[in-house]
C-alpha cells in the first residue's frame, strides 16, 4: 500500500466518514473509494452492497478480476444525553463492549468528572455538543433526561442523521407527549417509530445498572440486526 493512500484512509476514519479500499489481488493495484465517490466507480454496485452490509470481502469475478474490498466504517459510538445514574453504569459497560462513549448534559451538577471518570463528558446543551460532533449512521443516540428541553433537540437531530439506534427513556405517557411534539415538528410515523421507547430490551430491568444492560443489549441488537435469529 502506498503511504499517501494509507494516510488518506486514516484521514477518512478520523473524520468519521466511510470509505472502501479496493485491492486487486492479482496485480496488487489499490484505490481508495470514499462514500461520496462510489457512484462514479466501475464497481459501484459491489461497493454499495459491501458498505450497506458493513462487511469486507472478496469479489471473485469482478470486471477487474479478483478484488478485495476492505470496508472501513467509523467506529461505532454511543452519544448519551443525560449524565444520570443509568449513564454512570452504561458508560463503562459500553466501553468494554467496544463503543466510544460521549455523555452530554448541560446541568453541571450532574455532569461532573467525579461521576464519569474516563468518559468524554460535555456539560453543554445538545445543540452545542452536536455542532462539534455531528451525529451519523454509526452513532447510537440514547436520551435519558426525560426533559424535553434537553432530549428533544437531540432526538430531532438523531432522526435526521439516521442514527443506527435511537432510544428515549420515559413512561408511556411521557413518550406519548414526545410523539405529539415530534409530529408537530413534521416527523412522520415511520420516523417516530424508529425511536425505541420504552427504552431497552424487555428483561424486567429494575436498577440503573440493569436498565443500562437492557439499553446496551438493544443497541448491539440494532448494530448486528442482520445476524439476529429473530429479526
Amino acid at each position, binding site marked *: *500500500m*502506498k*503511504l499517501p493512500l*494509507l*494516510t488518506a*484512509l*486514516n484521514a477518512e*476514519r*478520523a473524520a468519521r466518514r466511510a470509505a472502501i479500499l479496493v*485491492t486487486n*489481488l492479482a496485480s*496488487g493495484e489499490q484505490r481508495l473509494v470514499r462514500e461520496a465517490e462510489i457512484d462514479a466507480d466501475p464497481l459501484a454496485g459491489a461497493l454499495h452492497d459491501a458498505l450497506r452490509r458493513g*462487511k*469486507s*470481502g*472478496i469479489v471473485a469475478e469482478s470486471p477487474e478480476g479478483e478484488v*478485495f474490498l*476492505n*470496508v*472501513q466504517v467509523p*467506529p461505532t459510538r454511543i452519544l448519551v444525553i443525560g449524565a444520570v445514574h443509568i449513564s454512570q453504569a452504561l458508560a*463503562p459497560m459500553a*466501553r*468494554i463492549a*467496544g463503543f466510544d462513549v460521549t455523555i452530554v448534559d448541560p446541568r453541571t451538577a450532574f455532569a461532573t468528572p467525579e461521576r464519569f471518570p*474516563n468518559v468524554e463528558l460535555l456539560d453543554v446543551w445538545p445543540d452545542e455538543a452536536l455542532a462539534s460532533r455531528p451525529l451519523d449512521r454509526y452513532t447510537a443516540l440514547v436520551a435519558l433526561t426525560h426533559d424535553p428541553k434537553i432530549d428533544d433537540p437531540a432526538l430531532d437531530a438523531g432522526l435526521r442523521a439516521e442514527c443506527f439506534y435511537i432510544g428515549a427513556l420515559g413512561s408511556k405517557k411521557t413518550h406519548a407527549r414526545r410523539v405529539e411534539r415530534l409530529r408537530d415538528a413534521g416527523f412522520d410515523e415511520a420516523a417516530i417509530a424508529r425511536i425505541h421507547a420504552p427504552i431497552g430490551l424487555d428483561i424486567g430491568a429494575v436498577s440503573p445498572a440493569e436498565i443500562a444492560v437492557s439499553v446496551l443489549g438493544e443497541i448491539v441488537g440494532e448494530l448486528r440486526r442482520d445476524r439476529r435469529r429473530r429479526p
Partner: protein
Amino acid sequence: MTDAATPVATDEDILAAAQAWREAGRGVAIATVVETWGSAPRPVGSHLVIDEEGDFLGSVSGGCVEGAVISDALDVIESGAPRMLEFGVADETAWRVGLSCGGRIRVYVERVE
C-alpha cells in the same frame, strides 16, 4: 487509551500506527484477513501491522498463526512483493502453524511503500 476498559487496539489504531511507523522511516507491512472459512477467530478485514524489527500490532487470528505471518511479513518488507498466505486444517503445516479452531483463513501481506 490505556485504561483497562479498552484492552484491544482498534483497527483505527492499527492503521494509524502503520502510518506513523512508516513516516518515522521504518519498513512496514500490513497483513489483512481477506477470506475465512469455518470458525475463523478474526473477521475478514482484520489487520496485523509489522515493522522491520518484527514489532507488531493487531491480530489476524488471535495468536494461532501470527508468528508465521510476521516471518512472511519480514520477507515482504525486504522484497516489496505482496504475498497471499493461507492457513488452516487442509494445510500440511496445520499441526505446526494451524488454527486450533479448525477454520481456514487467507491473509494478504503487503509492504507500505
